């Protein structure tokens, strides 16, 4: 087998073949991996519009968003004041009430306890609301206040505020 003289040419051919082959393999794998990302219909269901015109003061409704419960509460003046009065530095997860709402009478929270994922009680009038008058998680005893912040119990963080916008005074789009 003749060797050295054609080395340069052969190396170039080898290099370009291997490079193109590698690029091609990566390009082949890409669509398969991408197919595992959420599909179009899943993404379309990713945002929900809610009509809040019928919610009365003091009332809280639960809607489903991305498979999880979302609490939408129209807070009373007392509840808003109680939430504002708390010093953020006293909290396990320091957050001012103002940072958790866009319009202070409307509180929008993901209704999943940040401890281990149960749905806290407090939506119904007859529910236990815990010592801070917000929500109470019966699984391991976490107490949330009128801003949905963790005050007592094992949960590490405040109830999540999902991304939302006011499309108009009567409609919130979540997600």
């Amino acid at each position, binding site marked *: *087998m*003749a060797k050295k003289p054609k080395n340069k040419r052969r190396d170039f051919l080898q290099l370009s*073949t291997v490079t193109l*082959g590698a690029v091609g393999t990566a390009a082949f794998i890409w*669509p*398969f991996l*991408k*197919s*595992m*990302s959420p*599909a*179009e*219909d*899943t993404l379309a269901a990713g945002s929900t519009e809610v009509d809040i015109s019928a919610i009365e003061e003091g009332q809280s409704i639960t809607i489903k968003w991305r498979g999880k419960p979302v609490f939408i509460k129209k807070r009373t003046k007392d509840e808003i004041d109680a939430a504002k009065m708390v010093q953020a530095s006293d909290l396990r997860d320091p957050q001012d009430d103002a940072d958790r709402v866009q319009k202070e009478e409307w509180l929008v929270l993901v209704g999943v306890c940040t401890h281990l994922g149960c749905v806290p009680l407090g939506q119904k009038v007859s529910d236990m609301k815990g010592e801070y008058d917000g929500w109470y998680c019966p699984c391991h005893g976490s107490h949330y206040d009128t801003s949905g912040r963790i005050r007592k119990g094992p949960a590490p963080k405040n109830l999540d505020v999902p991304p939302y916008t006011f499309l108009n005074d009567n409609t919130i789009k979540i997600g």
Partner: protein
Amino acid sequence: MDKNRKVHQFKNPVLNWIEFRLPIISYFKKEYGDYPMPKNCNYFWSFGALATITLVTMIVSGIFLAMNYTPHTDMAFDSVERIMRDVNYGWLMRYIHSNGAAFFFIIVYIHIVRAMYFGSYKYPRELNWILGVFIFLLMMATSFLGYTLPWGQMSYWGATVITNLFSAIPFIGEGLKTWLLGDYNVGNATLNRFFALHYVLPFVIFGVVGLHVAAVHVHGSNNPDGIDIKTNNDSVNFFPYMLIKDTVAMCAFGVAISAVIFFGPNLMAEVDNYIPADPLVTPAHIVPNWYLAPFYAILRAVPDKLGGVLLMFGAIVILFVLPWLDRSKVRSCNYRPIYKWFMMGFFVNFFALGYVGMLPAEGLYLLIARVGLLYYFGFFFIITPFVGWIEKPSKLPLSISDVYAKNIAPNIGGGEKGIPSPAMQKDTNL
């Protein structure tokens, strides 16, 4: 355990560590590195590699489809359309899978043509041939099961027709059919189990392919002239010579299958399968996928239901015994001047059967199917043994290197030539 067995030593310590515990590195070096391949193998010999690549592609695309498919009669059709429309690149995976199946059969048919024409089924490769026919049988089962999954009109009615064949078996037929279907008629129970079986069979195929390749490697590959490797000069190492040839073949195959997937994805599809299955409406023409058509033609050519079933399965079973029907000592049809024409006639006949298998079984088409059936079985039972017995074959070449130097080496690409072989040197007085 033989602690003193000889272990191959590599320069790389990691490779050595693995090799001592599982000699997989030397295994691959032996089977795919230094493995001797006849020099004179043409591109027909690349179709085995193409088939393996296609099998892997089918399994991968199938798994990703299965992430989004629902095997329930109420949801199957819609879930496939969801894959086409909503899943990212879902259309690509679906079309790869449906057209990949068709190309898998094209490749395997050409692979079988190679085996038959060049006598690769003969001594000492008979078991390899048998394993190959078994793979073919598994492929047909897998593709039949897979075709029902989209739950279109053709899915449902094709499944109905073929499973009805089982009821032709005397005594146990009806019970067997009900057991297979899980119901009195093709329905949800059937669809669900067909999905489970369709998912598992390709891995069985993969296993048998492993045996098939292992069997080839025992005695080495056949070659277009059908003569054995006698010296080192007759062969080249698989790596890089045959690997690079297989890569060329793969690129050509890539162009062909991409042309279909991207520009004609429904060319080989049945339009009726885009209509959701309706047990109350039978399509005007029920046909299987084209690659099963030759056997479907044989089935319909026989007026008796049980007879048709027996001959259809017989047409596949007879393949298993080909090595014993053919008594000729010469392998390659290139050196069998009479049998060669009957063999090519067999391929044409098989194609013709496939053609009429997709058309209504009436009139001229039915006649062609019957003639085709007669030639098909006549070729195996009568022509092959008889011609093998009386034929005087052509003179075989001296050696593979001889054939290569005379006929093949002069034609490789343009430009500079390498050092001429001793055989050539003798002729040209260099």
